[in-house]
């Protein structure tokens, strides 16, 4: 194989692995949008707050890793519920922009609160899988990235079962389709909304743990980064589509890594946004979305 082709394939592998991050972020975002028909820009900070809370058992009690994971999930759920109360519950319905602004306010609030409490010092997160890369013929695969990819697929499978084959999933789909009719048919809409916050935050907490573990260090700026990447992913994938978010995440990862390898670090984000632009102009519904609004 020529060196160029080797590079392209290796960067595609890296991109797919990294893209699994984006896919995980996109899943929570898109699930939320699917049910609530609103963006939650405080989703990134929710996830960040969860993984910061996960540091507590790790540093204070030297707890085993499964306790840390559970704390991340519980922390994210707690903060997610807080976001629901503060940013959505009391905002008058019918205003599309108001909840967007309240979640922006929450984004700033949570991020600065974490900066204040941690003095903006980065915290180390323990690697679970060690540094050794797996060799796959001429290519290298990092085990922690592989774990993220597998976790992503697992979450998608579980969410698929939940959404398509349980009573709660049916209620969620009904609310997503038409909240008023769902209410008339006896679905408790506000309960579904609250549980959607719980579910997306839990997915976020678990994904956030994997992300933090792979990065090896944690700093508050991660909240804004996760929010932006999540938004890009769900637009490319099609709003509300879980498989779309996964595909878009992987695609974004591959594009970013090719740009990074062949053009340099400053081109990475330019290509990410060009991809976003291309989709918005040429296919506004996204990869697997229904008609755009």
């Amino acid at each position, binding site marked *: 194989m020529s060196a160029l082709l080797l590079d392209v394939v290796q960067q595609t592998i890296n991109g797919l692995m990294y893209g699994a991050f984006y896919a995980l972020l996109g899943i929570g975002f898109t699930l939320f949008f699917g049910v609530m028909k609103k963006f939650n820009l405080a989703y990134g900070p929710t996830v960040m707050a969860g993984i910061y809370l996960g540091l507590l058992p790790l540093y204070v009690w030297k707890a085993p890793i499964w306790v840390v994971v559970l704390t991340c999930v519980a922390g994210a759920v707690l903060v997610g519920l807080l976001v629901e109360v503060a940013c959505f519950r009391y905002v008058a319905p019918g205003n599309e922009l108001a909840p967007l602004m309240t979640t922006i306010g929450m984004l700033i609030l949570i991020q600065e609160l974490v900066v204040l409490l941690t003095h903006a010092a980065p915290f180390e997160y323990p690697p679970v899988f060690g540094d050794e890369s797996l060799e796959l013929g001429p290519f290298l695969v990092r085990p922690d990235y592989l774990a993220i990819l597998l976790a992503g697929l697992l979450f998608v499978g579980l969410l698929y079962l939940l959404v398509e084959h349980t009573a709660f999933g049916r209620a969620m789909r009904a609310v997503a389709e038409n909240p008023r009719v769902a209410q008339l048919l006896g679905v408790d809409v506000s309960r579904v909304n609250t549980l959607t916050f719980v579910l997306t935050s839990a997915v976020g907490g678990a994904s956030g743990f994997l992300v933090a573990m792979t990065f090896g260090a944690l700093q508050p700026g991660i909240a804004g980064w996760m929010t932006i990447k999540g938004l890009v992913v769900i637009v490319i994938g099609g709003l509300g589509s879980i498989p779309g978010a996964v595909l878009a995440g992987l695609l974004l990862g591959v594009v970013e890594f090719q740009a990074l390898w062949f053009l340099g670090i400053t081109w990475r984000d330019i290509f990410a*946004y060009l991809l976003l632009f291309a989709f918005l102009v040429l296919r506004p519904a996204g990869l697997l979305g229904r008609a755009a609004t």
Partner: protein
Amino acid sequence: MEYVVAVLSIIGIHALLGLSVYLVAITGQLSFGQQGFYAIGAYLAGMATALWNWSLGPALALGTVAAGVVGFLVGFPALRVRGLYLGIATLGFGEIVRLGFLNLKYTKTIGGRLVGPNGAEGFRHVTYVYERGITQGQYLLVILLALALVIVLISLLERSRLGVQFRAVEEDEIAAAVAGVHVTAVKVLAFTLGGMVAGLGGALFVHYSTYIDHEMVALPLAVSAVTYAMLGGLGSCWGTVLGAAVLISLTEGLRVAKEFRLIVYGALIILVMTLRPRGLVDERVVLWLGGWMRRRRWRLDAP
């Protein structure tokens, strides 16, 4: 006194940035990309005075017009998407502009100093204002004059037929089109005007601060700009000016408690948007104020 002048200058410049969001918002389009136009205005006007020896007036005009042209061009693809999608698309535009300036290198050695946009190092030594001996107070007057001019023009626009068309497009695009409004023209015009106002703000800013880099036109600036307009209210352009004044005075006033500054800022956004979803100066306030002023005039006119 110097401090007050500095704060007022920043309020004036940021009010212009907020007004560019407002102009686009009153046609029902939310833009998180106005800082891109601001950056274009700042870099071009800065290059004009620092590298090409232009004087301030033409440089400000260049920044304004160039940003307006880009706004015109962005207006067309932006037509394809609406609402929250447009918010994300414009966010992407702003970031592309920022990353473009991060990669831009165009420098000359003038008087022993390297002047001009220099990639990640930023664009230093835009010293026109200081070399000409213009004081901060005089430059504040320039900023306030520009702001006053923009406010007058926007007020005239809103009182005109065109202003009614802007609002009609916000309310219901299809109904507006049926009533004979050229929706495409209105939306592209809004983006062009918004780009111009933001470009003017950026051009004024770079001569005020003598320095600009890509981090100064990143997403936090976009969030501020949108917050001025949304918090201030979409009922009148005075709302945006009020929003910028309140938020900047507040962050300056809280400088003593600087760790809590942004926390209060975030909490304030949540509180105001929950209590007043259309902002402080919303349509109801404008109507009420208008009615109050009419009643007063009637009383004064009465014998």
